């Protein structure tokens, strides 16, 4: 089973790097991007199994970014991260079913399992 490819997009570099390292430790291939634009470019230019994007990036809202990615690469699993409560984020995401919501701080292990399980199912 080939490891799943993951893209993490967050303007807080330490947070992104930290999460990336843990996910790598859990067996994923991880890339990081620190701006919304860079993240969207990377995601649309490559094939990622999952994209984890922060809801509030300085140049682009996480919701818009993920929707853009889904237009080009509809099979990508999209996770929206936020420090606010899930209810708050859902309000902003407008109940878009295609996006899954993660509230910080979340358990990387749990995320890893969600991603692997789906990948396994899809293949």
């Amino acid at each position, binding site marked *: 089973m080939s490891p799943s490819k993951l893209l993490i997009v967050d303007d807080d570099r*330490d947070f992104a790097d930290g999460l990336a*390292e843990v996910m790598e430790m859990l067996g994923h291939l991880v890339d990081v991007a620190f701006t919304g634009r860079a993240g969207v470019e990377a995601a649309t230019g490559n094939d990622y199994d999952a994209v984890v994007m922060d809801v509030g990036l*300085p140049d682009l809202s996480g919701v818009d970014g993920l929707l853009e990615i889904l237009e080009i690469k509809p099979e990508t699993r999209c996770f929206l991260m936020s420090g606010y409560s899930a209810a708050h984020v859902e309000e902003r995401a407008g109940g878009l079913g295609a996006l899954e919501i993660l509230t910080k701080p979340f358990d990387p292990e749990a995320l890893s399992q969600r991603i692997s399980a789906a990948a396994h199912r899809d293949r």
Partner: protein
Amino acid sequence: MLATGVLAASIVLQLTAAGLALRLVRVTGWWLAWVFVSAALVLMSLRRCIALYRVLVEDRSLSPDLSAEIVALCISVLMVAGVALIGPLFARAKKNERDLHHSEERLRQATELAGLGYWVWDVVADKCSHCSEENARIHGVSVDEYLARSSSFEEDVAFTHPDDRDEYRRINQEALAMGTGFDMEYRLLTPAGETRHVHELGKPVFDDAGSVIQFYGTVQDITERRRAEEEIQKLNFVLERRVEARTSELHATQDALVRNERLAALGQLTGAVAHELRNPLGAIATSFDVIQNKCEAAKLGLDRALGRAKRNIERCDDLISELLDFTRTKILQPEPTVVDAWLSDLLDEQQIPDHITLNADLDAEGAAVVFDREQVRRAVINLVDNACQAMVIDGDGDNTGNGSGNGKQLTVATRRTNGRIEIEVADTGPGIPEDDLTKVLEPLFNTKSGGTGLGLAIVQRIMDRHSGGLEITSEKHRGTRVRLWLPAGHGLEEATPR
């Protein structure tokens, strides 16, 4: 003999009639008419006297004709009766005239008292047949002039203000046609050019056939009343505006009060939470130090992870400090300070990133202001840090400036103007979006990651406590300018800085 007696009686009666006639002069005041009548009667009696004289003195045998004399006597009696009876008639007429005169005088006085003019319009002759003094006065002319100018309806209309003439004609014609009275307010334009508001009432007078032959009525000058009404309206309007303004002032004050209370409550909560967080953070920090130590010793290659952890523990600490700072209110320690010199030193100490050019434009002409140096220093440093951060984060992540080609400029300027000293910090970063401009001063409003969003709220608080203020202007892609100002009230003289 009898005839002579009758003759004598006639003479007496005629003389009596003459006397009574003369009395009528006094009653009626016409002396000529009654003198003639009296003279006629005297002459008639004189003729009789001569006849009597002839009989008595000249020839006793000549006796007058009895029947003729009796007829003459009857005539004399009738004359006396006539003159006697006419007297009271004239007297009554005179009294009536006097009464009428009094009555008119009273009416005139009454209408003058009430400011009412009285007029009578002769419909048949189409002219004014009577005009009271007050009516003429209201029209700005004398009575004679008024009557002269009202010798037809159209002429009378000339007294009316041009804008009201159509309505004036209409109402008058309607009243005439319907045989009703009228009650109208309109404007007069006196020959002197003065505009007056009047209230006119009119009533028709009918002849036996039921057609209108006359109109009579009153006119009252209500200019003063109208003016007073307009004044009241104006005052009302002004009052309403004032009430509105005061109400919104009140609302604003209420809002400010609520906001302050909220801030105070927030402050307390934040302080408590921040304080509580210090302990666990402390435990993490110390434990981490041990971990870091052992990892480095064992060369486990965990540098990146260790670095991240350390940095972010410190970040937490800073955040907690900032929060606690915001909630605490230190007592101000104001000192007179020469602004330019102090600011210049401050900027020298600051570490500005290399890619940013610092322009110092200190133009406060050596003015000194009294303020807490530590607090205002924090405010200025906060602004400088914000500016520097704004010129690192660009929309597309590269450092080529904001598109205007000027590179990254940080300008710090001071100025003395309008009774205040201003310190301005301007950057050439991406600017603050208009929607956010109102929110940036709210505590915990944050658009950049890694910050509490308290910075500007703290700066505002510092300026408020100095009775100064803070103004932010920003233009998208051009940059942001934040101006701090302090009142230059006290201490504008050159003071030796400590």
